[in-house]
């Protein structure tokens, strides 16, 4: 049994989309993903939506999109978390033998809520929340520990910002695209020491959809699919309390990656042609290189400086501009999958990498300081 991604779509991410409500954004990407796959809604036999009740300010956030995702009279479920986790469950539904075609659609509108309050809600309600800790503040703690452990400088982190915002210039769907220097990053406003404005991803509105199909379905249907095969997928969570974690390392990512690579029969990093990683903050991209085994522990900055992860490097990372250039929470991981698919299909447009992309990694995170990770190995061949 096998499964592939046969349709993808995401809309332009922006700071405040007041033209469309959530359902309207979801309808747009659903119809576009169907068109991309050459399918109609009746070809879809089940749906997984991905949303978050806190970000949406709605207790059953999935309810808003039931009409818009075409789930009427279909088997549907909802994952709360990053879009990669939704894609994983959508994949399981096909591999279970119950379904042939899964639509996975994720949305969020960061502009409608208060990031600090929403992410303060992730923390222990008795001991941590009263301190006002949120996503940004906890990330600053992690950045500090990472830098201290491995001797990484703020300038090193800034290089990630320079690379990804530069890549975003070629991606019309990114929100923040600019040509900047390390100096610009260093001079940007301090938000939570050592993190500055350009180290931090923006708040965004957006939606994304993918269509997964079984091997059987593709065989039975004559459409000329451009399938991207899922050869490995795994997720893993670290401990909850920040004090119980080794914040300078990402053991959960390491474990998820090992499992996904094992499934995909990936034996060496050399086999990976491209990666789209969840770089919510500059330092995270370096840490995720290490967790994924792209380079030894603590050597993320060196790996970046080697040029390997530049758009023309041997392992381009976030050719799309990454999460630093547009951070639609919940949809962001699904967008990583979509960008990896487009690169494999050779359809990424202006930010298409020059080299042939046969195997690509897409990655998503959940919880504070990358507590939980999901890793996909996507390939041109089954």
């Amino acid at each position, binding site marked *: 049994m096998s499964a592939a991604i046969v349709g993808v779509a995401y809309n332009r991410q922006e700071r405040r*989309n007041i033209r469309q*409500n*959530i359902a309207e954004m979801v309808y747009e990407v659903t119809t576009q993903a169907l068109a991309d796959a050459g399918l109609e809604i009746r070809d879809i036999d089940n749906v997984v939506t991905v949303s978050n009740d806190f970000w949406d300010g709605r207790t059953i956030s999935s309810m808003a999109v039931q009409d818009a995702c075409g789930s009427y009279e279909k088997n549907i479920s909802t994952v709360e978390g990053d879009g990669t986790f939704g894609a994983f469950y959508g994949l399981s539904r096909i591999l279970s033998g119950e379904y042939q075609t899964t639509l996975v659609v994720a949305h969020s509108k960061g*502009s*409608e809520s208060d990031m600090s309050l929403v992410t303060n*809600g992730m923390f222990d309600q008795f001991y941590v929340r009263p301190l006002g800790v949120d996503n940004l503040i906890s990330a600053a703690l992690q950045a500090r520990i990472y830098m201290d452990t491995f001797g990484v400088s703020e300038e090193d982190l800034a290089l990630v910002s320079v690379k990804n915002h530069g890549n975003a210039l070629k991606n019309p769907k990114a929100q923040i695209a600019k040509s900047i220097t390390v100096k610009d990053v260093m001079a940007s406003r301090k938000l939570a020491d050592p993190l500055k404005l350009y180290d931090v991803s923006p708040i965004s509105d957006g939606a994304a959809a993918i269509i997964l199909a079984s091997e059987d379905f593709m065989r039975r249907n004559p459409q000329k699919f451009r399938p991207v095969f899922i050869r490995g997928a795994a997720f893993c969570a670290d401990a909850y309390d920040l004090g119980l974690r080794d914040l300078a390392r990402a053991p959960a990512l390491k474990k998820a990656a090992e499992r996904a690579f094992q499934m995909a029969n990936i034996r060496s990093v050399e086999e990976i042609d491209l990666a789209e990683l969840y770089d919510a903050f500059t330092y995270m991209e370096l840490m995720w290189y290490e967790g994924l085994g792209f380079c030894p522990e603590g050597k993320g900055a060196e790996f970046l400086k080697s040029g390997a992860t530049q758009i023309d490097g041997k392992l381009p990372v976030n050719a799309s501009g990454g999460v630093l250039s547009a951070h639609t929470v919940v949809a962001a991981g699904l967008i990583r999958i979509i960008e990896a698919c487009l690169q494999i299909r050779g359809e990424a447009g202006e930010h298409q990498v020059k080299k042939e992309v046969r195997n690509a990694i897409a990655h998503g995170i959940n919880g504070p300081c990358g507590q939980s990770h999901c890793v996909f190995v996507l390939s041109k061949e089954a």
Partner: protein
Amino acid sequence: MITEENKQGLFFMHSGDASQPYRYTVGTWGSKFLTELRDHKQFYGIRCPKCKKVYVPVRQVCGPCFTEMTELVPVSAEGKIVSYTILRFQFLDPETGERKPIPYGYGIFRLDGADTNFQHFIAVPEDESRLFIGARVRAVFREERRGSLRDILHFELVAD
């Protein structure tokens, strides 16, 4: 170990209250609906090009047909009761954090010209038995309207 006996003596703590502010986007069609309601006291529905159903509240997609709708059609501020109840228990209004004033009438209406229901307050007459499923009702508007469902004060029975 907490047992039934010593439980009484313990002071169990809780975390305190929390609240979250939101700025919801009404969307393309909803914005038109609320503008018309505010400026002209006029209800609108939206018609599915496929099944011809007229939806109130308005929205972009007909769920059963998975078809985009673009045709706004005026519907009446009058209709009939599909079902109703009178709320008699105390609960918090999540919009305000205040206790909802009870008792209040909660009505599901079918406005003339619409194929789905619209819900709002129903004014409860002194003789509650005058409320029944199928009874005719009409919207009562506020003098000062700001473009929300609160522009409608409530629905009331159409005097026979």
